[in-house]
């Protein structure tokens, strides 16, 4: 039996160390090559013209950057309208056209101390506001801004419009009350909890008439894809055929956002600021932006469903047509929000279920009969 030779073992030690080093080097090399491969792959994908254009669309033009700028503009626009209606001085006098007021407020809000209540669930409290904003911003991917320049659904692109994008938007938006309720829950305050339940209740009341109101345009166009619904409105805008549907959609969407006449979830004279009571600083800013993004989204939906989307003046680009109509609709939206007293929670549910729901259901039935029995209607609404 061979005896253990210490010196032999010692001379082999160097090989062993060398081997370990090589092993590490192999891992490192493999990792670097893998990263480079991934970058190469991404680059190869991006370099494909249609993919590159998709990225440009998703990040720049009708995508993230555009939506964020639109969001900043929207806040300014809303405050401007409110200032005119309410005889406020700040938003109309600070800087040129009151443009600085928004930045002053944004800096003020972000510079504020973030106070997390002792009873709050800290991680949920930190994550939920941003998630809310992300969910709301995601839905903008399905808005058909232009005949070609869309994030999804550009003709001939690798990422066609989903055939159910209308349903998908509503599906994503159902997450919003969940987040409101959760934020109210994890804040650890009774006011927040009441506000969270009210927000969930509000959405529960208003979502149903809103979804059913959007069935009318979908039935006329014969499609659930946002792009097809807009494309079908070349001959006539659906607001001409479905004014009642538009009205129910407008009211239900305001209720769904939970802004002024329906702001029982954040009623400041009752429950301080509802589910947003305990949010401060950047978390409040994010939630505030999410609310405005939701208002933008519903206005854009109304433009797409009832006002012909990108169809309009033929010498203008489609997106300009869309934006002009969007400004008008958003003005209407804001005007309604600034001219009524806050409704009680039971009155909101009462309004939504007793008046909006039957009206929208009746409209669906009428559209069904009209499509079948009025002979000239179908060629008119299907579009060129």
């Amino acid at each position, binding site marked *: 039996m061979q005896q253990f030779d210490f010196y032999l073992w010692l001379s082999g030690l160097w090989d062993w160390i060398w081997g370990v080093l090589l092993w590490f080097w192999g891992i490192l090399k493999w990792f670097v090559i893998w990263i480079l491969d991934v970058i190469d792959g991404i680059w190869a994908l991006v370099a494909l013209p249609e993919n590159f254009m998709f990225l440009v669309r998703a990040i720049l033009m009708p995508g993230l950057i555009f939506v964020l700028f639109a969001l900043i503009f929207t806040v300014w626009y809303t405050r401007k309208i409110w200032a005119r209606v309410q*005889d406020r001085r700040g938003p109309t006098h600070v800087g040129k056209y009151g443009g600085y007021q928004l930045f002053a407020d944004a800096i003020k809000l972000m510079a504020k101390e973030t106070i997390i209540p002792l009873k709050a669930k800290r991680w949920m409290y930190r994550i939920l506001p941003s998630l809310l904003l992300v969910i709301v911003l995601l839905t903008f991917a399905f808005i058909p801004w232009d005949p070609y320049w869309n994030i999804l659904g550009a003709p001939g692109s690798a990422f066609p419009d989903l055939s159910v994008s209308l349903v998908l938007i509503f599906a994503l938006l159902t997450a919003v009350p969940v987040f409101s309720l959760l934020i109210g829950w994890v804040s650890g305050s009774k006011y927040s909890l009441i506000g969270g339940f009210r927000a969930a209740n509000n959405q529960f009341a208003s979502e149903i008439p809103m979804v059913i109101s959007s069935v009318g345009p979908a039935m006329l166009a014969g499609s659930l894809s946002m792009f097809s619904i807009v494309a079908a409105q070349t001959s006539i805008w659906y607001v001409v055929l479905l004014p009642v549907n538009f009205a129910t959609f407008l009211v239900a969407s305001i209720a769904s956002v939970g802004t002024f006449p329906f*702001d*029982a979830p954040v009623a400041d*004279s009752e429950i301080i600021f509802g589910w947003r009571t305990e949010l401060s600083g950047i978390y409040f800013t994010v939630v505030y932006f999410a609310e405005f993004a939701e208002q933008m989204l519903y206005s854009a939906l109304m433009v797409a469903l009832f006002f012909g989307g990108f169809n309009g003046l033929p010498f203008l680009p489609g997106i300009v047509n869309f934006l002009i109509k969007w400004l008008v609709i958003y003005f209407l939206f804001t005007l309604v929000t600034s001219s*009524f*007293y806050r*409704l*009680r929670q039971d009155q909101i549910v009462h309004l939504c279920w007793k008046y909006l729901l039957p009206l929208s259901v009746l409209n669906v039935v009428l559209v069904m009969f009209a499509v079948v029995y009025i002979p000239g209607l179908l060629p008119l609404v299907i579009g060129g």
Partner: protein
Amino acid sequence: MSPDILDEASVIWFGPQHVSAHGWATKLTLVGDYIVECDPNAGYFHRSAEKCLEFRNFRQGSMILERICMMEAFLAEYPYIAAVEKIVDLEIPERAKIMRTIMLEFNRIHSLQFWWGQFAGELGLFAMLLWPWVDREYTLDAFEELTGSRHTVSYATPGGVKYDFTPKFHAKMEIALSRVKERMPVFDDMLAGSPTFRLRTEGVGHYTAKQALKWGLSGPNIKACGIPMDLRKDDPDPNLAYGMIDWEVPTTHNEEHPGECDAFDRLLQRFKEIETSLDIIDKLLPLLPEGPIIDPKARAKVNRLPEGEGYGRVEGTRGVTSVWLKTMEKAQTPWRAKIRGPCFASYYSLKHIVPGARFADFPAIFGSLDPYPGWWDR
């Protein structure tokens, strides 16, 4: 109520840091959306006004009272002056009497303009919150022109008033009053004409005239039940000019439930209060004679008061406001002062009015009763 309902109850403190609790704390017990118990708590706003009065002489004391309720500053300080005038014998010039009355009514208009905005804000319409407050600036400009101060006017002094009406003040008052008259129909549309406002206020927070008398409510809160109880008519102060003219006490009658009032009636009542104030000012302005504005001996007489008791009261915006003073021989300061504000009654009546209401109706109820904590924490 059965005890098992209270098992699910949650207690919520409405105040003192709540944004629409004006410095008071009310403990509410909620079952679902309904309030089953309302427990008003006084004491969060205490600034010992009564004690402060014992260390001020009789010309300074009224300034303490102004700070109890800024919105009706002159109406709040006047009872003190009336009480001093009861103790010492002073001859108020005719001109000063009318000027005091005009300013009292002007102050009432200002206070109600503020209340419009506050009530609308509590019900969630920001446009209506800010519109009356912009108009209110014209009223405050007139106050500033007359006294140099926008809220705490301290206009009257024992024996008369401090400043004479100038043509500039007349012009500014004319602007302010015409603005109020011009905007009354607009605000009537915005409040009483708004369907959502009616939804929120009709049938909310109602009580009967009998209950109102029992709880000791006064002012618009009891006139809204149809009881024409008004100090300006019932007990006209000899040093004011309410007796010189002919005017009506405004009351509101609820047609569905006679002898009861809800939040909506209390709003209508306050509209009528403004109309009455405008009417009184319009009738008094032509009567304004030339002459002195203060009793020339007042300064000497008020320095040291004889022993006595004085009780001055006035019909404030929120109800009967009164001050009782007790002085010793050659007194420089009151021996004891007691303030009786109108709002203690209206605040503690919440205890009986609120249970059974929805949580969201609570702002509508206390907003229409208009309690201000300075009046009970003195």
